[in-house]
């Protein structure tokens, strides 16, 4: 990768799969779906699309140094995490990513759950989470197409601060590196992203044979 700038995407065209939303709602594989519920789900997916602004950005950064439990990037961003180090074991470069679908849908979910139609609110919540993840999936697919030309690919998995032994504290350095305030995001004192349907992730770039 020769990108040195943050690559931004706005209004990414996404239509989350209904099956993925059902899984978030606790679906069992091939479980029958009640027709009324299916209609409710379709309505929720439609409303969620209207209320979402799928936005994502990424920045590739070289790995400056990696030990069994630390990773240091070229811009001196430092992570202490065995699991992240393991994820990046075949990588010389990482991609820092962030995704958000904006505040409008979060407000709508709260409004539905507390004031109007809680069942619809729950569906909107599931679709919103799935859409936020789908932004990351979309960017990873995008990057994989670019990388394939060079015989490289992204690690199959991505990692987010707050999972495994990668502390949530690292949201701060990634937030600052990616300048997420420019997307209208905020980070709370406890390192949470606002609006709620926002997520930060890290993946590695590795040769295709892995």
């Amino acid at each position, binding site marked *: 990768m020769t990108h040195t700038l943050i690559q931004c*995407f706005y209004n990414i*065209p996404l239509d989350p799969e209904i099956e993925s939303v059902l899984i978030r709602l606790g679906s069992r594989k091939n479980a029958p779906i*009640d027709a009324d519920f299916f209609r409710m789900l379709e309505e929720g997916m439609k409303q969620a699309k209207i209320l979402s602004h799928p936005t994502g950005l990424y920045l590739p950064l070289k790995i400056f140094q990696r030990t069994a439990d630390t990773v240091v990037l070229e811009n001196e961003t430092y992570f202490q995490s065995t699991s992240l180090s393991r994820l990046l074991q075949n990588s010389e470069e990482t991609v820092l990513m962030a995704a958000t679908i904006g505040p409008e849908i979060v407000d709508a979910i709260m409004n539905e759950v507390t004031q109007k139609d809680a069942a619809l609110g729950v569906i909107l919540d599931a679709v919103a989470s799935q859409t936020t993840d789908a932004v990351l999936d979309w960017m990873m697919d995008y990057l994989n197409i670019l990388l394939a030309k060079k*015989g490289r690919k992204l690690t199959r998995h991505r990692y987010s601060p707050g999972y495994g032994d990668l502390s949530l504290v690292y949201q701060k350095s990634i937030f600052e590196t990616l300048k997420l305030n420019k997307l209208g995001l905020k980070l709370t004192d406890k390192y949470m992203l606002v609006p709620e349907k926002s997520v930060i992730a890290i993946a590695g770039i590795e040769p295709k044979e892995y």
Partner: protein
Amino acid sequence: MKKTAFDNFINDRFVLLDGATGTELQKRGMPKGVCPEQWVAEHPDIILEVQNQYVEAGSNIIYTCTFGGNRIKLEEFSLGESVFGLNQKLAALSKKAVGEKALVAGDLAPTGRMVEPLGDLPFEKCIAVYKEQIQGLLAGGVDLFVIETMMDIQEARAALIAVKENCVLPALVSMTFDQNQRSLTGTDPVTALITLQSLGADVVGCNCSTGPAEMAALIALMKPYARVPLLAKPNAGLPRLINGVTVFDMDAPEFAGYAQVLINAGASFLGGCCGTSPEYIRELKNKTLGQSRPVSLTPAFSGVTSARKTVFFGSDHPVKVVGERINPTGKKKLQEELKNGLTQEVRRLAMEQTQNGAEILDVNVGMPGIDEKQTMAEITTLLSNFTDAPLCLDSSSPVVLESALRLYPGRALINSISLEKAKIEKLLPLAAKYGSMFILLPVSDEEVPERNEKRREIVWEVFRKAQQYGFHKEDMVVDGLVMTVSSNQQAALETLDQIEWCAREFGSPSIIGLSNISFGLPERSWVNAAFLAMAIGRGLTLTIANPSSDLLMGIKMASDVLTTRDRDSLRYIARFSQGEKQHYGNVPGPEVMSIRERIYRAVLRGEKEDIHLLIEQALQESVLPGEIVDDCMIPAINEVGQLFDAKKYYLPQLIRSAETMKLGFDKIEPLLGADQKSNTSGLAKVVLATVKGDVHDIGKNIVGLMLKNYGFLVHDLGKDVSKERIVAEAKTIGAEIIGMSALMTTTMTEMKEVIQLARQVGLQCKIMIGGAVVNADYAREIGADGYAKDAYEAVKLAQKLIMNDAHLDKSILP
């Protein structure tokens, strides 16, 4: 080189392009990580040698070594100020290398930045970046341009517009498609071809990303719609990284073995991309030697594109509905939003119309109090990503239309161009420049003709003018100029005759704005539907209508079947024969069920709107209140719980059922005997909060709602609540349970603090926790009394906790 000279150059031969340059430079010593453009400028003999070898091998067109020669790319090497000089020098070197033996194409390639509407690089800036490079290449003497390896249709458009606004040289455009036959940003090959050839590309095709076999499949997709020659410049098979070096798996003879496959697919410009060398071009030449290119022109056709979809129309296609609803006239909410720069209503209307069957969306934002040009550009940008449906850009202002046409990453339909001088003189050149189709409104400065004869004259006159800009009849859509039958009953017949004339004689598609026909009449929908059916019968191609009308859409689809435009009735069948899905509790219809069964069913299926009426009916039928609760509602909600536990019901269904139960119980409670009542003072009280520092409370709110529905008295303190406040509130109200939620590892520790404080002040209440990062082990570790993984578990846990606490069961359920 002018287009005619280029056409003569191509003549009837297969044109051979060059192969890879980067790897040839590396073979000759170019180090990794340097700026190739600068390195070549400093080592001119090497590019002379490489390009000379390509010419000797048979290349008719050589690309300048300027793949990364735009300002954005050169700035990565701090060479942003050398754009003109480097491009001029490299173009001159290529000219020197090939002499008179081949043409030199100025190479324009991706900037590496994503351009709007998907990215953050402003479209005009992108055009400016290419213009700067083009000027250098022109100064160096290039014969034509090639825009290559484009992964985003909008960036390809920017480069092509930049070429067309700088010179009259021919432009070849080749896109890169991956294995799922889409560009990086989702454009399919046919859509890319139609968009680019409409915009003025002289050759369109594919390069890079795939080997020759896969590329032949892409070319074959394009071929039926190609009105320009097609280009194929595949890689030498698939890339692999071996010992840090990218290698390709196909040698020159194997690669050239696909030449005939590519030719048969429709390619007439052949070359090689990554992994190829002069040897590959020599082999290609051997395979094409002596063959002449079949020069068959694909007939003109009617089709508009978005960035990701083409919609074709014509007499052999089903009638396409152009959704009319994105228009502020008479829509207060849309007007308000547009004034305030908001777009939710636009998105809603776009989605509603496409879901109901509109395949093209008309966009009109004309209203007082807004900057129409800016708003049109913004809405066009938004809808370009939000929907796959191509847009019909609707404005009376040429300035407004140009702002949208320039930005729109597809081939739009302009609504509309008439013979009115102010319109036609400005709009025809615009439509031609951006390759748009247009609706031809048969109106002149003198009149809005009622009679068909005059309309035909105007259509012919506009067409003759449009022809001068290269338009065909298939590029225009003649408006039926629908007038209201309530003031002139002949109006419908005139329009129908005009539609038939377009279809059978003139040869252009036609369109009607349907609803005008019935203005002033009662029950307008019947008139509209009848008129639509008659118009389709006479050969109508498009209609501007509201696709939310089931009657209209049904008539349209039925008419498509009856006029054989819906082949094998496939679309009709797909729309109207969707099988019913399973209902739980739906065995007999409600009309044959007893009132007890209907109450049971209402709770089971969460029919909260019906429950009060059903209870009233049951009471009228002398069912005792206690029986309604014990025999209908409780068994139903128990079954809901079982269905949820078995993962046959989802949380939203559980919520609906619980809400129905609660509504029913509230209705019936005053009628119950004292032993069956739960008075408010006796309900179990739960203090609920998301802990300090945590801002997530959607899950906690759902738990609160469920607890309420199951008969708990919930005091929800909200999110980011301090331990002191949680404990104080629990103490004040005498809570039986404190429920806490935390979604993050950084805030889950706060739960322990709350428990410690509660115990310090002597609170004996039970404590339950939940949230994405906690579990039962953590609950035990911090001294909580329980953990619930979801809202229903929380209800069950709360019930269990109050039972264990030797309280009476104070919730609704056992």
